[in-house]
């Protein structure tokens, strides 16, 4: 029996984490993500988990990575400025292949910006923010139900691919209240265990090594330095570095068909909206108000790795319109993959596009 509740997006995110078996939360208060920490602070001790409010976001993500290596599912939640502070250790998590979940309830930036308003300005930061080449997984919920579902999914993807997974929500879904169906149990994909005789950073066929948690007797050396399959630092060997970085990227990019999660509407349309997160709600409203088979809609739930094959579903597309709560960050990525024009419809300040605004854009570019 599942239960139906009326709750806030941030609470749904915390509930999703708890359902997925998250037992460690390290965080630092920041608007508009704080409700996640508050909910975890109440719920985790009752379930034998650990909640800790660290001294800053650098420490939060560090504690989360440390906890993840003891074998528990661990997460943190933050917003723009805190997300920027986490960047170095996100790179560390990528390099050491630490599964963890980072929730970013995005707000208006740059800098302190608009703490209580929504934005989608960190979409490229979550992919390229840390130094060096790497690949990550980012999900974008558009409703409170998806705050629950995609948080669960983020834990599963993080554990499956041994990578930090991002839930790139924003203030709108974070603070919105909606009806949520919470199932009794959710699907849990466990981490693949390290087999005896296997090296701790040997990717094998799919590039994903087995996980040996601390205390299991494998004496794993985990380092952010370039390392070989044994985990030993090997910083001067060009080939070792090349092999490692290519594997870290390859294990995600080659699995993007499996990771992809998107919705397609009117695949024969000539004008196509590409959205992720709350702007998709405006497009849904528009299509509801004026049903038109000539208007297509691609809604991404997984934004990174970018599912470029989803764009080719729209074989007749003449133009792609991208309403985003930023200056057109993902529009660049879409333009990389298609020959047709990609028109960004930016909106800044914290409000969603109105259906009228999208209709205006539609008339201008159709």
């Amino acid at each position, binding site marked *: 029996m599942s239960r139906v509740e009326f709750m806030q997006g941030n609470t749904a995110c915390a509930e999703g984490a708890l359902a997925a078996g998250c*037992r*460690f939360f*390290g965080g630092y208060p920041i608007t508009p993500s704080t409700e996640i920490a508050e909910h975890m602070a109440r719920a985790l001790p009752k379930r034998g988990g*650990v909640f*800790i409010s*660290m*001294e*800053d976001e*650098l*420490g*939060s993500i*560090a*504690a*989360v*990575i*440390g*906890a*993840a*290596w*003891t*074998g*528990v599912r*661990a997460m943190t939640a933050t917003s723009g400025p805190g997300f920027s502070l986490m960047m*170095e*250790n996100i790179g*560390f998590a990528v390099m050491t292949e630490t599964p963890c979940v980072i929730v970013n309830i995005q707000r208006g930036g740059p800098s302190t910006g608009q703490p209580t308003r929504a934005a989608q300005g960190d979409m490229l930061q979550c992919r390229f923010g840390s130094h060096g080449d790497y690949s990550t997984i980012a999900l974008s919920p558009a409703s409170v139900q998806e705050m629950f579902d995609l948080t669960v999914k983020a834990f599963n993807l993080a554990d499956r691919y041994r990578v930090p997974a991002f839930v790139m929500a924003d203030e709108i879904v974070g603070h919105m209240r909606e009806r949520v169906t919470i199932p009794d149990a959710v699907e849990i994909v466990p981490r693949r265990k390290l087999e005896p005789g296997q090296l701790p950073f040997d990717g094998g066929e799919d590039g994903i090594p087995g996980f040996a948690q*601390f*205390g*299991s*007797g*494998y*004496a*794993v*050396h*985990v*380092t*952010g*330095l370039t390392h070989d399959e044994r985990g*030993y*630092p090997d910083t001067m060997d060009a080939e070792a570095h090349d092999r490692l970085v290519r594997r870290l990227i390859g294990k995600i990019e080659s699995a993007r068909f499996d990771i992809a999660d998107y919705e397609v509407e009117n695949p024969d349309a000539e004008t196509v909206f590409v959205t992720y997160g709350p702007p998709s709600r405006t497009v849904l409203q528009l299509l509801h108000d004026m049903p038109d088979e000539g208007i297509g809609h691609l809604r991404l739930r997984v934004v990174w790795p970018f599912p470029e094959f989803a764009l080719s579903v729209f074989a007749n597309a003449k133009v792609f319109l991208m309403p985003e709560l930023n200056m057109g960050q993902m529009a660049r990525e879409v333009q990389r993959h298609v020959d047709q024009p990609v028109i960004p419809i930016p909106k800044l300040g914290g409000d969603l596009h109105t259906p009228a605004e999208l209709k205006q854009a539609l008339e201008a570019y159709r």
Partner: protein
Amino acid sequence: MTAEEWYRADRLPHIYCAGCGNGTVINCTLAAVEELGWRREETVFISGIGCSSRAPGYILTDSLHTTHGRALAFATGVKLANPGLNVVVFTGDGDLAAIGGNHFIHACRRNVDMTVVCMNNMIYGMTGGQGSPTTPPGAFSTTTPYGSGEPAFDLAELAIAAGANYVARWTSYHVKELVKAIAAGMRTPGLSFVEVMTQCPTNYGRHNRLRRVSDMIEYLRTHALLVQKKERLVQEGKTVPDEMFTVGELVRRNRPAMGVRR
């Protein structure tokens, strides 16, 4: 070797310069671990970035070599998520006092049950000898070519003020005392902080007329002032020389601790 089987023999010799004190501190830490009878699979060594922080890579246990300054935050996560693990943090003066200063005071405040061994060589060694927060006033380095004009941090006093349950300071010359201090720290629930003044002949000594290892050792030996002797000097109203540092067990107490194994 006291703890030969704790070393990753295939990784030796390590990257430290000839005469570096860090290897000695690893020896002493492992001797203390042996004394306590810890098991390898229950022990985790964690470090940040710097010369000192390469140490866990030479020890045959689970080890986490993290980002600059964050070792204590990582260690907090490890210890709280699994209190059954024995956690030892190797860190240096730049790692702990400069970039990681905030994590240091908060780890002491929380009193998370772990042992922090700080190899204080008074310099940023790995990057080639720049002045650090513990470079003594007047000392030369590549970034203090006219002598350091800043007061230095007293890390042990900082740990005491922030609330660590056990604080001691020795030098890499006082090996027997150091082993005892680290073992006592490991036995004490809560955060134990052992500061080890180590010699860095390559980068600190070179700029400060202590180029030879024996000169640096002599410097450490003559500048170490036993805490009991210092108290006696204070009682007698005599002045304690500024350039000397106190050694010995500086505090042992029983504040509430986090992450203690049940």
